[in-house]
């Protein structure tokens, strides 16, 4: 199969997942928001659906990666990898969303905030790859 067709199919499955969460639970499938919600005190029902979503994501996604024989290793060296993790956690909490909340769900809702967020994180990620892989010769 064409790789772009597989990508499109994967995207549709992600979109259906976000639609199912909204239809059944009335909530936005923003992974960073759901994870951050787990680390704060909240009512039992709110905690339970978040924990269930993450449990499904981690287990089924992890299994799918094995079945699809997918490699997954970040090329970043250890200190860079840890710094990147902190930046992703901090930035998505400050900016109220990531690729799923602002990208998949926010763009689908035609949210102006999400449109600005997606343009901003795409631009800053592209500049980051440009700097680390080209100007500084693969420092990451």
């Amino acid at each position, binding site marked *: 199969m064409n790789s772009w067709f597989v990508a499109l199919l994967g995207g549709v499955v992600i979109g259906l997942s976000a639609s199912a969460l909204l239809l059944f639970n009335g909530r936005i499938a923003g992974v960073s928001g759901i994870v951050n919600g787990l680390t704060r005190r909240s009512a039992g029902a709110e905690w339970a659906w978040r924990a269930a979503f993450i449990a499904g994501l981690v287990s089924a996604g992890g299994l799918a990666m094995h079945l699809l024989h997918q490699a*997954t290793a970040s090329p970043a060296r250890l200190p860079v990898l840890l710094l990147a993790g902190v930046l992703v956690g901090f930035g998505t909490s400050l900016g109220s969303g990531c690729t799923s909340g602002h990208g998949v769900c926010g763009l*689908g809702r035609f949210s102006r905030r999400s449109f600005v967020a997606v343009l901003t994180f795409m631009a800053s990620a592209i500049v980051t*790859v440009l700097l680390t892989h080209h100007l500084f010769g693969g420092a990451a």
Partner: protein
Amino acid sequence: MKAVLAALFSGALFGIGLAIARMTDPVVVIGFLDVFGDFDPTLAFVLLGATMTTAVAFHFVTRRPRPIAAADFQLPATRTIDLPLVLGAAIFGVGWGLAGYCPGPALVGAGAGAETALLFVPAMIAGGLAHRLVAVRLNRWSASPEIPASRA
């Protein structure tokens, strides 16, 4: 119980979709972000497929009086483009470009037992907690930490 099962199902579908789309491979992600180098545009179709689906489905779902397994819809109410939004997105983009992981794929990679993902995820959670500590102190710099996490 129905709400928990529905969330479990949605999460599973989300993870499977990320794996099919190869969003879970940081090398593919960095290739997509490498616009000025060895650019691989395939992942643009992931965003296209996902947003086409949500744009149609959300339109019909939000017309319902309430969700199937919950009391109400909780959609982000904030409308203003503010500094926390733009600064947060910019900081997130730097981390995404450095490692090739955003939150969903990092968690899926951890589920698959990938070592880099298992190191990345705790750092990411620590980063989110660090922001909340800062936000409590600098209430005006960031939105109140009491705002629900679903405010995407």
